[in-house]
């Protein structure tokens, strides 16, 4: 099922990660420590009691049924939810030991260190080059922009397809290429963490596979958190997996974390009954 190059890359990345994490035992290698007690959109309680540690140079996956709050939790990690009017949040999210929801912290600054790739490819209506250079200009990057752009496009496995048409509009690319362009745009500024919300849901299996390979490559330099509906995908790429489920007991539809652990354990030996049912596909 799994092609060899992918498997090789996977195992190599795992070894890299193992060596790296050995050095970081001090802080347990946790880059983002997320503790959500209660999260509201206006008066609607969307998520409760969810705490997920996102470890450095690992891929952390969020799985769960639709509407359980995976995207919401992910968007909490770089304060994208602040853009929703009426959003309220109890708990804390520590990034490198600092609470990003502290009043003194600027939400836009947080997003420069924690990048995001969205479900729908969303390149800007500008040239491919300018799309990737956008973040560099935003951060008033003084170094060689063209080099960085090329580097980002290479790392997102798009360079060969676009190197002759960098001045063409980013919208002229196919869906899968657009998504890789968005990944290039997000990694060009070398953020510490990359959040990906169902990055492959609009893509065909081949493009999906390429992006999965890409993630495994990228995790040697970045930390990745991904939301996915595709359990095989989580199994293939994720080191850690969190399973969220909806609690309808008090009349609402409140998402919460059921189980979090190493992907191997979650998929092969889940502790909770809900997780077992979900993974076996036994949900009504």
């Amino acid at each position: 099922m799994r092609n060899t190059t992918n498997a090789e890359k996977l195992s190599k990345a795992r070894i890299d990660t193992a060596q790296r994490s050995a050095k970081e035992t001090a802080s347990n290698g946790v880059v983002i420590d997320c503790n959500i007690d209660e999260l509201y959109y206006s008066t609607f309680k969307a998520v409760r009691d969810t705490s997920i540690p996102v470890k450095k140079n690992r891929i952390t996956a969020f799985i769960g049924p639709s509407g359980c709050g995976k995207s919401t939790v992910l968007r909490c990690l770089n304060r994208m939810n602040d853009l929703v009017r009426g959003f309220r949040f109890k708990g804390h999210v520590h990034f490198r030991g600092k609470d990003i929801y502290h009043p003194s912290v600027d939400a836009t600054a947080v997003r420069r260190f924690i990048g995001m790739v969205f479900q729908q490819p969303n390149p800007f209506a500008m040239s491919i080059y300018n799309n990737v250079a956008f973040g560099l200009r935003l951060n008033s990057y003084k170094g060689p922009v063209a080099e960085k752009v090329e580097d980002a496009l290479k790392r997102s496995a798009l360079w060969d397809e676009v190197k002759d048409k960098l001045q063409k509009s980013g919208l002229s690319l196919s869906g899968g290429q657009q998504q890789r362009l968005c990944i290039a745009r997000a990694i060009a500024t070398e953020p510490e963490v990359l959040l990906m919300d169902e990055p492959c849901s609009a893509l065909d299996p081949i493009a999906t596979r390429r992006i999965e390979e890409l993630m495994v490559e990228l995790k040697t330099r970045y930390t990745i958190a991904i939301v996915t509906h595709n359990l095989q995908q989580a199994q293939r790429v994720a080191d850690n997996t969190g399973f969220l489920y909806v609690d309808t007991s008090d009349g609402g539809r409140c998402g919460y974390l059921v189980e979090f652990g190493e992907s191997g354990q979650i998929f092969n030996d889940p502790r909770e009954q809900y997780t077992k049912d979900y993974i076996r596909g036994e949900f009504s």
Partner: protein
Amino acid sequence: MSDINQISRPPTHSQQVVDTAFRWLCCGFACLSVLMVALIMLEIAKDAVPAIRQYGPGFLAGTTWDPNTGQFGILPEIWGTLYTSFLALLIGTSFGVAAAIFLSEGFLAQAVFQILKAFGLQFHPVLGKLPDRAEVLLKNLIELLAAIPSVVYGLWGLFVIIPLIRPACNWLNLKLGWIPLFGTTLTGPGVLPAVIVLAIMILPTITAISRNALVSVPPKLRMAAYGMGATRWETILAVILPTAARGIAGAVILAFGRALGETMALAMLVGNANRISVSLFSPANTLAALLANNFPEAAKKDVGVLMYAALVLLAITLFVNIIGSIILQKASAGQEGGK
């Protein structure tokens, strides 16, 4: 086929007839409107032919307008039309686009939300809807500006704007008179009051169309920019405005057309003086005002001259529209596939 499936069936004969009839009806109305424009142009051109024969292209370069001696030239009016429209467009666009940004990017909604929150009412079943409504409410208010009759604008300009700005204008002339823009004093009607009123008159057009263009920028682009860590201003300037540029440019062209043809308010405010001057305070004249002022008393033989002037105005408007659409096409060439 109906025996296969009970619910789906092909359109009935009468449905098809209605469909065809509807298509022809629309086609007919569309053709009628085009025909009307063509007829008007033809009529004007026909009436203008004698004057065109008599005065030729020299009419466009002449600077006197004297029915008594039969000397006619409209260069000052052409200059006045373009000058006032251009200045009004400059002011109207700045204010209009700013208003459109304010009314589309959630500034107002957020402010209202904060105010409600201060009173703990942000989730109130009725008041809680206010933030979303506020923008539309204010937009409608601005669009109401378009419903004010032109003559009311003229009166308002005469009795409010001119007295209001006169001291400042004359002070500018006194202190900075060496700048050609402030070269004369403002004694009454003149370019500046006309421009101010014209700018207000085209404001609703620019605001409404620009706002529509801004609102229809896909939210996912906004999210992408915010997700990169762009501030709100960076997002607006670097992503949203360029994406909506086409629509905003369309608004500006439409407003320019309106400014070129505006008659009543300008006839009251521009001073109706046959003069070419860059001074903002000098009286001037525009083609539309010239027509309005001269038609009522025009002798039979002078009507042709006025028709000639009307034709020139039409040509200018057409020319501006064509140039505008060419610029539009050029500007959006880099975003193919954007729609």
